[in-house]
Every structure is written in structure tokens, then in C-alpha cells.
């Protein structure tokens, strides 16, 4: 087999590691840093032992100082390096907002193209086993709002690898959103280095009856919902946008023109979020489309499992709403689907 086409089954975390390793090998200007980047766990294995392989100046631990460390990455990027700044939870990005919004996103504009900031900020969204109000927030809409930033949230190991490599090579600041519940997801990934195009979505499952668009982990649950829907004769099309800014509006419009029904399942709160953006675009550009949306409940995330299960959309709630939109029986109760990644997660974080 041609080495260039070789694929291997690896998981999402391994795909991120592989992308980082290959880019660090390709380009001396790439370095990875963040709290615990060089610790024995290496961010769920994604940076494990990189400091031993590339030297401690290319993979290093930092003071907690999230705000300052973001600025350090911006400055280093302005000087021609390609930093990857890593956070274990997205909630901590709130400590970096001034640097991301006031500095990184504007540097090119206020210098009229003289400067650029090729900085990647990797963040993981947490979920389950007590992550609660401040370790589970999915704040993608904050960053989607800002011109000058790119935001991507890959779901599959393939896109995790190709998306990270594309982010590192991109000359703009990129917020690269991971999900804690996706790390063990396995799939075929090219062994060699490759990029996906930032700004292009992907139809993960073809269908004619309804378009379901997820984000990050809810793409996974939307695929599960599409399986449930088969039992009631509904053939759903499932789209993974991958890139949240820029958004591939075209792929969504094309799908809803065919299905006439759109269900957006955000991995986040619905108000002023990804679902608002997608439904607005479809309302303006496509005729006679029925739209619905699901997302986090309108409250902070509780820690107790008995309440947490009502906080997130799940395959059953997605399937139920989709079926109703397709004119199906409103009393249909889809069976509960086992979400292995969530059940098997026993913390600590």
C-alpha cells in the first residue's frame, strides 16, 4: 500500500498528539505550552513526553497566569513562532478574554496587515462526573462573535488531526475546541500529515427527511439519534460543521433546501449561540424551512447526575423532537441510548 494513503485506527486524543508531534518535527517554530503541558499525564496524552523529544523550550509548563500566558503566545507569534497554548477546560479562557479579544483578534487589522498572530489555543470542554458549573462550559459563541478569530470544534479523530495541523499552519489566531467525552473516540486517520480546510463542514450521514446539525460532542449524539429515527422511518441527514468561524453556511443551506427541516443541536446554551446563528442564516436565505433547536438547559450545569441528565440534550430527546418535526407521533418515546463515553468516565477531570 502506498505509504501516503496509509490509515490507522487511533483515538481522538492520539490524533491530537500525532498532529502536534508531526508539526513540531516539521517546523522548529512550533512549540506547545500551558499548565501541565510537560507533566506525566501530558494533557490526556496529547503532549506526553514532547519535552523529552523536542527539548524543554518547545514543550513547557507555565505559571497559572492564563491572561499573561496568552499575551506571551501572541507576542511570540508576532515574532514568527507558532505557539500552541493548551487549557484543560474552556472555563479558564474567561481569564484570557482581554488578550484574545482585544489583542490577538485585532493585531492584523490595527496594523493594516503588517502583523499576524499564528497562535493556536487548545481548550477542552468538560462534562459529567461532577464537572459542574465551572468545568463544563461550552463558550464557543463568545469567540464566534469576534472578527479576526477562527474557531473550530472537530468531532472525529480524522478531523481532530487534520484540523489541528490546519490550525497550526493558519496565520490567524485559532480557538481549537476539544471535548473531554470525545478523547476515546476511535476512527481511521491518515498516518501522514494532512490538513482539513478550516471553514468546510462535513455531511456525516446522508438523509432526506430532516437536517440535524450538531457541535462537537452533540454531533455524536445526533448520529445516535439518527439511528433511533430509522425505527420510525425517518431518514435524517447529520452535519458536522467542524468549523464554527468561519461557518460553512453553504453545506447547511444545501441540506435544508432538500429536507425543509432543520434541527440544530448545540453543545452549549441556545440563546445568542451557534443555533441562533444557523437558524438566522437559514431564515434569511432559504424558504419555507421548519426550524427547531436544542442545547444546554438555561441554567449553570449542576453536578449531581440526577439533574445533570436533564441539562444536556441526548440521543432520545434529539430523536423525539426530530420525529415530531417530521410529523411523527408526538407520544413516541425512543429508547435510551447508552452513551459509553459518559458512563465510563469516572473523573477526576
Amino acid at each position, binding site marked *: 500500500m502506498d505509504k501516503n494513503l496509509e490509515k490507522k485506527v487511533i483515538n481522538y486524543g492520539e490524533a491530537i498528539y500525532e498532529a502536534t508531534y508531526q508539526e513540531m518535527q516539521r517546523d522548529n517554530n512550533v512549540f506547545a505550552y500551558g499548565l501541565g503541558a510537560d507533566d506525566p499525564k501530558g494533557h490526556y496524552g496529547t503532549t506526553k513526553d514532547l519535552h523529552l523529544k523536542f527539548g524543554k523550550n518547545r514543550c513547557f509548563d507555565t505559571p497559572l*497566569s492564563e491572561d499573561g500566558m496568552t*499575551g506571551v503566545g501572541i507576542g511570540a507569534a*508576532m515574532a514568527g513562532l507558532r505557539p500552541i497554548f493548551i487549557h484543560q477546560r474552556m472555563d479558564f479562557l474567561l481569564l484570557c478574554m482581554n488578550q484574545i479579544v482585544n*489583542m490577538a483578534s485585532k493585531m492584523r487589522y490595527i496594523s493594516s496587515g503588517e502583523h499576524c498572530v499564528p497562535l493556536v489555543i487548545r481548550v477542552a470542554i468538560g462534562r459529567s462526573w461532577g464537572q459542574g458549573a465551572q468545568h463544563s462550559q461550552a463558550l464557543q459563541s463568545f469567540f464566534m462573535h469576534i*472578527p479576526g478569530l477562527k474557531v473550530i470544534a472537530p468531532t472525529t479523530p480524522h478531523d481532530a488531526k487534520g484540523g489541528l495541523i490546519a490550525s497550526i499552519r493558519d496565520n490567524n489566531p485559532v480557538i481549537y475546541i476539544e471535548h473531554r467525552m470525545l478523547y476515546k473516540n476511535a476512527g481511521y486517520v491518515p498516518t501522514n500529515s494532512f490538513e482539513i480546510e478550516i471553514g468546510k463542514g462535513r455531511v456525516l450521514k446522508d438523509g432526506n427527511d430532516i437536517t440535524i446539525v450538531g457541535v462537537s460532542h452533540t454531533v455524536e449524539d445526533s448520529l445516535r439519534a439518527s439511528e433511533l429515527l430509522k425505527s420510525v422511518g425517518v431518514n435524517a441527514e447529520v452535519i458536522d460543521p467542524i468549523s464554527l468561524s468561519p461557518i460553512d453556511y453553504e453545506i447547511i443551506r444545501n441540506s435544508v433546501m432538500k429536507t425543509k427541516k432543520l434541527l440544530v443541536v448545540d453543545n452549549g446554551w441556545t440563546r445568542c449561540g451557534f443555533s441562533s446563528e444557523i437558524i438566522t442564516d437559514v431564515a434569511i436565505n432559504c424558504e419555507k424551512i421548519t426550524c427547531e433547536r436544542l442545547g444546554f438547559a438555561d441554567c449553570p450545569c449542576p453536578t449531581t447526575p440526577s439533574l445533570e441528565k436533564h441539562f444536556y440534550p441526548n440521543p432520545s430527546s434529539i430523536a423525539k423532537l426530530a420525529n415530531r418535526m417530521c410529523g411523527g407521533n408526538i407520544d413516541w418515546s425512543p429508547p435510551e441510548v447508552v452513551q459509553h463515553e459518559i458512563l465510563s468516565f469516572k473523573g477526576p477531570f
Partner: protein
Amino acid sequence: MKNQFDIKKAYYLFLLIRKSEEKIIELYNSDKIKSPVHLSIGQEAIAVGVSLALSKSDIIFSNYRGHAHFIAREANLDKMWAELYGKSRGTARGKGGSMHLNDISKNFMPTSAIVTSAIPEAVGYAFALKYKKKNSVVICYHGEGATDEGVFWESLNFASLHDLPIIFICENNRYAIYSHQNTRSINDPIVSRAISFGIDAERISGNSTEEFFKATIRCKEKIKNNSKPQLLECMTSRWQDHVGVTQPELSKEEENNIKKAIKHDDLKNLENKLSKDEVLHIKKRVNKEIEHAIKFAEASDFPRSSELLENVYY
């Protein structure tokens, strides 16, 4: 860069800054300048002294009160004026204004309007210089107001932790708009706090161009000998309002302090050390350069409407 203080050049740069800003005051009410301005009048000695001690390859991070730093670095005055006018031949093609000057040919980085925000960038740039084994240093100008922000100390900590080639130039005029330093922090010198972070810090009083020059030369020497990051707490005073071209409304005591500072204006001290001919020659040159810059700005077009969406992304 020479280790000898060049009085003629210092006087020229000082005068160029002073006269440019006086011209801004003169023209401000005509509404030709389309930008908030934070004037440096009273503080110029720092920019001039520091700049004369630098090499071409050194990197400058300034802030919204940046005219003096920009001009002392001999960055493009024509483009600065065009930027103030919002014109397409400006430093940011009219998209930045006074608060976001930049001149990449002089390693003068884009300035930020948010207090302290460019300081970690300056540290990150110094990190990159060390990473690439370059010999340049980063100059990071900031006011004492910046030391009120947490990220300032985060930056010092990281610079110290990694022994980065950076000189923090703290321009201490004691005021954040109208808030005196004593109402904002306990009454101790910033140097002592910086020293506790492992920074080599020194306070320079007297608002003298030559003293700031010598201190910067010392800092560069120390960095060359693998020493710690450096901080100079440069005591100075600002004679104008925080922003705009109005005079500040001061207490009697503070008014007297400013009067005293004006009496010891280092521009006059430098002038007194030169011959009449030299002074005359420099004055002519400065006037000519400012006139040229204003003509350049006036003759330039405003940017095309299609430029609105340019350079958002790479």
C-alpha cells in the same frame, strides 16, 4: 547606538516630539485629526534617552501614549501624521489612529489602547528572541498605571522565570487620568516590587534625557552579560490632560509641581549645551519635517470603502 550621549541628536528628537505634539494641540480643534490623542509633553526625555541607547534590531512595545516613543525611534513621521488624519497613507492606513501606531521597519510594534495589554506580548516577543538565539532586546514602555493590573506582574514573573532579554521602561507620572498613585497602591517604589519578582530594577529621578540614556545603556550591558530582565522606574510628569489637548485641572500643590518640572524642562537644558547655530539649524529642520508630514497627511486620500473589510484575517 553609541555609548556616548549625542546631545545634538537628543535635542533634535526631543524638539521633534515636542513640536509635533504642540502642532497637534494647535490643529486639534480644526477636526482634521480624527483620533483621541494621549500627549507625552513633559515625558519626552524618557523616550529620547532610551531610544538613543538602542540598536536597529531592538524591538519596541509602546502604548496609547506613544507619539514620543514612535518619534524618538525615528519611525515614519509622515505616516504618523497621516494616521492621525485617518488617511490611507497612515501607519495603519487610517484604521488605527493615534492609539495604534506601528512601524515594522523600525521594529515598532502596534500599540494597544488597553492599559498593560501589550506587556505580555513584549515578554512573548522577548521569549521568541531567546528561542531563536537573537541578540536584540525588547523595550517595553508602560506607565505606572499598568502596574495596577494583574497581568503586569504575571508578565514580570514569566520574564524573570525565563531570563528574557527585556527592559521594562516604567514612565511614572503618578497619575492614571486623575487618580494619584497613592490612592491606587501602597506607597512604595515600583522598583522594590519588581525586585521581589527577580527583576533587576532601578529608579531614575530628575527627568533627564542623558540619565535615561545612561541607565538604558547599563540595562543593555547587564542583559548582554546574561543578567535578569531589567526595569527602569523613570520619574516624570505629564503636563497635559490624560487625553485630548486640554490642560489638567490641578490642585495648587500639583500645579506647583508641574511648574517646577516645566522650569527644569530638559529640552532647555539640552538647548543650552548647543551653539546658537546648532540650535537654529535643528529648529529649522524640525519645522520643515513637521510641515512636510502635515502636507503629506493633507495630500493623502481617505481609505476606499472597500478597505473596511480588509485585513481582518490573514
